């Protein structure tokens, strides 16, 4: 009897010691993980250093934590299939955008094969290290705080998407630069990290690691990418993350997406009416070559006030006294035509003036730069838009924010469901 008790005691002691040893190793792994990110502050990352320290240290982190995170997840198979589907969607999106907007060279692949191989040798092990830490931290999040932990981990990992030196340099940046960084870099990174988190919680380490590895492989080996601006790319990344979220949620909850939404819509007449009105309005605007602008300066007071929304319609008959919208560089100006001048070579241009200005504008407006003639003024309804744009700087940032809000709301309920809270 006493021998049996001793066996139980020794076994529990051995388990206890094993647990302590693993705890110590886990702390070492987390310390190494922090080192991978912060090392450029103490070691200048030049030459081969960035090709050695992050991947080798990540491999060690991966080997320490892999044993803990490689556990069975009920949805693993389904989620792994979805990851493949996501990359098919990604490639198709890029192909479509490339056909519409043209293709450009991917600067990450503008190097020799050795360069591409070196980049992959650096990125792939580093990704494994990051994903194993994400999985480990998420697996530790249990109980009522798991959703908060999920969001915090995603936020921290999204911050790590940019090198620490970038944040150090940003200390001297202007408000506009910080806002643009937030929406063009951080928000897409956060959406991506939340998706990776959800992939781990639902599909296990294989799912988030596979997604992250495929992503890096795609970025570092695709020679051509659609020729679109960073802003558009960011919005597309956020929208993609939102779509992927919805697909994962619908698949896991086995929802019939169409019937779910149509059921909700049929309950509320307004939910039919409002989108229909918006659709009609946008369609009408597009068909009639009309555009809406919000007046943002006082140069046309009292005719047009700050915050007025104006409808501008394309017109070939522009004369003295007409209020027109026209491009000056990339900006649109709405001023009154002061004179129509015929040049010595027979070409025509307009001189313009703001009603509230003392002088004629210092630029010539040639007909191709005219957007259209003022057709309608809706007073002051654009004031909110002006305030919103003061915060967001660009409408693409606002679009990112809208889709990110959707992801956030969705991820909160979805992660609660996954964690069983």
């Amino acid at each position, binding site marked *: 009897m006493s021998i049996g008790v001793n066996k*139980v005691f020794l076994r529990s002691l051995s388990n206890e010691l094993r647990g302590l040893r693993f705890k110590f190793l886990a702390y070492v792994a987390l310390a190494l993980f922090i080192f991978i990110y912060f090392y450029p502050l103490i*070691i*200048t990352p*030049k*030459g*081969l*250093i960035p*090709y*050695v*320290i992050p*991947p*080798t*240290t990540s*491999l*060690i982190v*991966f*080997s*320490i934590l*892999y*044993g803990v995170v490689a*556990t*069975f*997840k*009920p949805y693993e198979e389904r989620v792994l299939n979805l990851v493949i589907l996501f990359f098919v969607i990604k490639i198709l999106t890029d192909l479509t955008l490339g056909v519409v907007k043209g293709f450009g060279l991917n600067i990450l692949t503008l190097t020799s094969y050795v360069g591409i191989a070196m980049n992959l*040798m650096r990125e792939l092990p580093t990704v494994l290290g990051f994903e194993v830490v994400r999985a480990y931290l998420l697996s530790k999040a249990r109980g009522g705080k798991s959703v908060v932990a999920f969001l915090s981990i995603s936020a921290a990992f999204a911050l790590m998407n940019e090198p620490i030196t970038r944040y150090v340099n940003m200390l001297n940046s202007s408000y506009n630069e910080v806002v643009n960084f937030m929406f063009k870099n951080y928000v897409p990174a956060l959406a991506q990290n939340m998706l990776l988190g959800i992939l781990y919680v639902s599909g296990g380490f294989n799912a988030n690691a596979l997604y992250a590895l495929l992503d890096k492989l795609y970025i570092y080996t695709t020679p051509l990418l659609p020729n679109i601006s960073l802003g558009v790319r960011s919005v597309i990344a956020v929208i993609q993350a939102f779509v992927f979220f919805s697909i994962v949620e619908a698949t896991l909850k086995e929802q019939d997406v169409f019937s779910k939404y149509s059921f909700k819509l049929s309950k509320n007449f307004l939910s039919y009416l409002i989108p229909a009105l918006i659709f009609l309005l946008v369609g009408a605007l597009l068909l009639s070559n009309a555009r809406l602008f919000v007046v943002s300066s006082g140069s046309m007071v009292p005719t047009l006030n700050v915050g007025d929304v104006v409808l501008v319609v394309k017109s070939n008959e522009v004369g003295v006294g007409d209020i027109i919208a026209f491009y000056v560089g990339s900006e649109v100006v709405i001023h009154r035509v002061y004179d129509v001048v015929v040049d010595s070579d027979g070409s025509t241009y307009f001189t313009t003036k703001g009603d509230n200005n003392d002088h004629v504008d210092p630029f010539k407006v040639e007909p191709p730069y005219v957007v259209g003639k003022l057709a309608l003024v809706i007073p002051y309804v654009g004031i909110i838009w002006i305030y919103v744009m003061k915060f967001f700087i660009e409408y693409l940032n606002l679009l990112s924010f809208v889709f990110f809000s959707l992801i956030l709301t969705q991820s909160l309920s979805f992660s609660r469901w996954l964690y069983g809270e």
Partner: protein
Amino acid sequence: MVSKLNLKLKVFKSQGFRIALLIVLTTAFVISTAGLVYSYSVPTATREVYTYVKVSQKFSVDYVAYVKESLIYDNRTVITSREPIYFKLLKGLNVTYTYVLTSETPIKNVRGSYTVTLALNTTSWSKTFTIAGGDLSEVLNKTNYLYINFTELFDYISKVDKEVGGSSKTYDIIYYFSFKPTITAVVNNSKTLTYQLSLTPKVKVSYEVGKSVIDFTVQDTEKEFKDTYELINPTYVRVFGLTLDLSVFRLASMTSSFICSGLIAFIAITSTISSSREKPLVDKLINKYKDIIIASTSDEIGTTQASRKVVLTDFKDMVKVATIRKKPIIKVSNEAGSNVRFILVDDDVIYEYIPSEESFKIQK
């Protein structure tokens, strides 16, 4: 033979050996990475500048002026270069000049030539005379003399002025010196190099009508010549008695870091796998499926509410049911942790899996 191989495998499988290997590899990894960081903190090569020849040429001038007896000069007839020279009182200048050539490096020999040219420049005409010249050794490192007879010079100038029919407002008497030494130097105890140098100083005596004082200026009196060469010394690193070029050392450090980290990862993962193999089957199941297993010590679970009981012989079947029916698996045991069985309650059906005695033993 087979027993020797088995012994080797056993040694490799032993935990102590693995820990020792991990310590060695970790140390090697840290050293390799530190070596790589160090290799980027030192330059790939150092440059050193050596001088073959460094020669300075210096021309210096002084004079005394012969003047008429006057109150301003206290009836002296000779004045020094520190005093103003009044045109009306000046008779002549006795100029002394030296041309010195010094070298910081050894010179085998110096030869060459020199010339002195006088130029008379007025606002209406100009004329040049060669007044001296010859071998450089005549003037080198010696005090040389040049007398400027102003009475004669201005007689000559007045004559020419009359000839050309004009009177000038400014008169410049310029002495152009030209020293052209050729030096031969022996460098690095073997190589002989020859250099052609030159120094062209200018002594200018100017007079402007309406001003009483004469200007005496000297220009371009010094020149330094230096011939250097650069030696690039590549940086070498000594490791275990081997002298390696820095770029080779960098590649070696990188390779070593990758190999060590790869091996550490391999050993750590295989250790995890093998240590989990050594666990009892029940522990392995609990560990692998911990996300869908909850633990309970209650005896009542699964005993009362169900109308049907399905006994499963394979735990994986229970996992299948749990996944399809989205129900947790309950691990039921007594307070001491023994009498373990797994239960899944699905409405009125209870699935039960009782691990065999073997499942609690360490699998080898």
